[in-house]
């Protein structure tokens, strides 16, 4: 059992006497957020009828995917992964010891709870089915993965080809001449359905291979730990990690384009740091500039379908829609090329390091164990391209287009006078959008209003105010009662939920921790000291000053472009295989993830020490009180956590 293993590794089991987290049924609504429940479907709220069961479970905050309050429309992502991931666990693979991961929303935040099977008879019944089915995937992994890339790409292409157009005053004549029978209003409705189905489809592909891939990785990790108790997760990851990974490709393309700009003699224009529109206009004035822009265009699809977040919130725009992040990065890279720095990733070095570490550990094992090591490492490496690459296909490429298509539909409602702005659509759940669609169709059909025109728009206003009030709420890392075991590989690997994490959170919850230091998972080795910069969303990244330590709810891979500037990264969420951890290691940056409390206890300007070897973050000196209001609110939140 995965967590059982973790417990043994870490030498301390979960001690019930250490207590529980706050009861999920006793969480206060933040001021101004009354009625927040109305933004979300009832099946995602804590239900009084389930109280006896639900308050006895552990619910952990999904900081990794949705650090900010959920927009109702963006619930499409968690809701689709709830069914796809869990169907694979529960019904497809029949994982013997795990059922699905439940979802609940509290004050706009998503909380997750894994489920264990402990009935030996049921475990025994599921095991042979699981073994046979999972073996089929492992034995045919490469062929299935190749096919997966085809399916994923096709799903994305179909999404791309969908469009939502405003209804014209008159139905096109072709409807009549072709005797079509149905209208463009009907097209909108069917397109919307296909659009939602497309998201569900991608979510299935997302989890088709992920449980098994994490399982293979965890098995190797566990084998290594049993022989080398001191081995860090980071070292195991470095033995397994791929070298030419699609996830690094967008950044690699920026580096290449920067070098190309210098070559063509337009480096200065890029380096000017102006708004992308201005830079592009200047480039258009010269033929070499035009040539560079053509090369940029060749790269953009698909590599600029790269979200500035984790890919789960529409507000994190992809580079495709917001050129400022890639242009800022290229300005940096141009300067470095001009200083004759080699910006290419040292592939040979990375490859030889990977082998050196693997061979170094292998050499410490006796013969039989060395063969086992080889086999388990080979299996991990075989499954790993999927782990690393699915992230680009799903979260960046597909999700970014998905959100853009929602804006297209939003524009349809704006043109029909139902909404004020394209983005207002995100304040409605996808099933509420069916009502919007119907009401629009009805008005279009009737030729007269259905009801007061302002109904939907004022509802947006109400929800916008609630949303702002929810943003001020500091979600605790966990609620409810810690479990005895967790058997679900994704919970452990991706979310980093183990006895250690839970113990640290409990300590923070009950004020047992040292308030000048806190712990997380050591995700990338090295130590660094510097001033903290607390960043909640990608727009705030601009404030980062060279040498500062990034403290954030999570680090999205696309934030890698600021990694050249920072000394270390600390994130509230994330496991060792989280996007944040992978990229930090790639950039050889000390990183501590899954602290649970980093953004709550650290203020911008605090002097920190980050130890990426031990996972300890120490506040060496508090910032001068330069932001009185902020400092005051932070300390009151700390008191809340400690009470």
């Amino acid at each position, binding site marked *: *059992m995965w967590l*059982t*293993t973790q417990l*043994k*590794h*870490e*030498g301390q089991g979960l001690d019930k006497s250490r207590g529980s987290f706050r009861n999920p049924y006793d969480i206060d609504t933040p001021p101004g957020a009354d009625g927040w429940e109305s933004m979300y479907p009832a099946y995602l709220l804590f239900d009084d009828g389930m109280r006896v069961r639900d308050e006895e479970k552990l619910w952990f905050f999904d900081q990794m995917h949705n650090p900010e309050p959920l927009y109702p429309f963006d619930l499409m992502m968690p809701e689709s992964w709830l069914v796809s991931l869990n169907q694979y666990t529960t019904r497809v693979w029949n*994982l*013997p*010891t795990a059922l699905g991961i439940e979802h609940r929303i509290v004050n706009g935040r998503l909380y997750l709870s894994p489920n264990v099977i402990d009935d030996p008879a049921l*475990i025994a019944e599921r*095991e042979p089915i*699981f*073994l046979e089915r*999972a*073996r089929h995937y*492992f*034995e045919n992994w490469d062929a299935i993965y190749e096919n997966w890339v085809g399916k994923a790409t096709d799903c994305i292409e179909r999404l791309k080809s969908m469009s939502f157009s405003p209804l014209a005053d008159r139905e096109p004549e072709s409807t009549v001449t072709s005797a079509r029978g149905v209208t463009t209003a009907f097209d909108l409705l069917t397109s919307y359905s296909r659009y939602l189905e497309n998201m569900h489809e991608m979510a299935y592909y997302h989890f088709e291979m992920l449980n*098994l891939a994490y*399982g*293979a990785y*965890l*098995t190797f990790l*566990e*084998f290594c*730990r*049993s*022989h*080398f*108790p*001191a*081995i860090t997760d980071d*070292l195991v990851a470095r033995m397994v990690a791929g070298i030419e990974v699609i996830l690094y490709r967008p950044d690699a393309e920026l580096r290449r384009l920067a070098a190309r700009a210098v070559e063509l003699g337009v480096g200065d224009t890029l380096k000017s740091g102006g708004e992308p529109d201005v830079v592009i206009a200047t480039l258009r004035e010269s033929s070499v500039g035009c040539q560079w822009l053509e090369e940029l265009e060749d790269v953009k699809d698909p590599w600029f379908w790269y979200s500035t977040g984790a890919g789960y919130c529409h507000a994190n725009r992809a580079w495709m829609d917001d050129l400022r992040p890639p242009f800022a990065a290229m300005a940096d890279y141009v300067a470095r090329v001009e200083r004759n720095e080699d910006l290419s990733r040292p592939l040979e070095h990375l490859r030889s390091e990977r082998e*050196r*570490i693997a061979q*170094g*550990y292998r050499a*410490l*094992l*006796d013969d*039989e*164990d060395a*063969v*086992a090591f080889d*086999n*388990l490492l*080979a*299996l991990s490496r075989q499954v790993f391209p999927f782990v690393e690459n699915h992230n680009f296909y799903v979260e960046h490429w597909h999700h970014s287009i998905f959100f853009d298509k929602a804006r297209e539909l939003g524009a349809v409602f704006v043109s029909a006078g139902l909404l004020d702005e394209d983005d207002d659509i995100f304040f409605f759940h996808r099933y509420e959008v069916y009502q919007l669609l119907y009401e629009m169709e009805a008005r279009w059909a009737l030729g007269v209003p259905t009801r007061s025109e302002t109904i939907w728009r004022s509802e947006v206003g109400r929800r916008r105010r609630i949303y702002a009030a929810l943003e001020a709420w500091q979600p605790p890392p966990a609620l409810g009662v810690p479990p005895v075991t967790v*058997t679900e*590989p994704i919970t452990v690997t991706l979310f980093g939920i183990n006895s250690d994490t839970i113990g640290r959170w409990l300590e923070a919850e009950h004020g047992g921790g040292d308030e000048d230091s806190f712990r997380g998972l050591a995700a990338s*080795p090295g130590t660094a000291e510097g001033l903290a910069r607390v960043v909640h969303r990608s727009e705030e990244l601009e404030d980062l000053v060279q040498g500062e330590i990034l403290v954030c709810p999570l680090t999205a891979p696309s934030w890698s472009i600021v990694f050249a500037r920072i000394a270390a990264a600390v994130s509230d969420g994330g496991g060792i295989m989280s996007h944040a951890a992978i990229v930090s290691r790639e950039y050889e940056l000390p990183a501590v993830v899954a602290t649970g409390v980093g953004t709550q206890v650290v203020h911008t300007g605090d002097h920190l020490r980050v130890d990426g*070897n*031990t996972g300890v973050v120490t506040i060496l000196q508090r910032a001068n009180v330069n932001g009185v209001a902020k400092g005051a609110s932070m300390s009151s939140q700390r008191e809340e956590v400690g009470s």
Partner: protein
Amino acid sequence: VNAVDLQQEYVVETVECHPHQLLQVGGKSVGLGSLLRAGQRVPDSFVVTAAAYADWLVSEPRRMSDSVRAAIEEAYRGLFQGDDVTVAVRSSATIEDSSESSCAGQFRTFLGAGGVRQVVEQVEECWLSAFAPHVDSYRADRVHEIGAAADASAVAVIVQELVDARVAGVMFTQHPLTGDRSLVVIEASYGLGEAVVGGEVTPDLFEVNKVTQQLHRRSLGTKPHEHRLADGAHTVATLAVSADRQGEWSLDDNEIMALLSMAGDLEAKLGRGLDIEWAIGTAGDGGEELFALQVRPITVSPRRASLEGGPQTDAIAFTLGRLAGRAMAAEPDGKAGS
């Protein structure tokens, strides 16, 4: 096991001390011989064998024979080219330092003998100490395992140039508690290694990863005093360590790397799982060097996961078994060092 051959030489070169001569030269001498044959820098030394002790034991009245005395004097003058080199005189008994026994340190060690006359006196003191009550009771328990033939005859004595250690300590080439082979564990404190070996101070602790050659963990000890050579290197003085120095690490990165390299070299030549005593300091008029002072095997039960499901032959079956919730037997019982 044969009885000590009374016809053996009274004094031998340390480099000639091989494992099969354990009963003649004792465990420490065999360890020193291994270090020399492995090419380590070891302070100059020679060994007064158990044959000399046996000769003394049967003499009546009990006194060192002229031939033994002459052999010691010749070896001392031959090795140190002089009459005034400060040495350590240590007993090297066949019970002590064997890998089955962990009663190291109960035998006599005399630091700072200077001049051949004092050396001869101290060799005799070592022999006498074999009768010390605490040693006797220990040997009485163990003697049947060694064999009756070993009897009371097996005390050899090492005469070794004393290194004026600035810092010294012990090093384990795998974690002594968890058995983790990827770690070298170093304990270090100021001055002669006796402060660490004898448990007088809490040494600085360094755990270094052999594979990455990076520091895995370190903890600062309290190092309140140190033993240093004094009085023209003729005596050993116990000095207080200033608060500032106590707060500093006793080893720098280069020194840690040199020790790591020594560990790797010795494991390659002598096998896995070694407990090494070392010192960084000067011997005679030489400059500062890293010396290996002693080596012995450590016995840690090897760590291994249960390979049920056979990852050696079928990694998929093993992985599926793990995913199905089968426990990996023989799990580590604690995370190293935390």
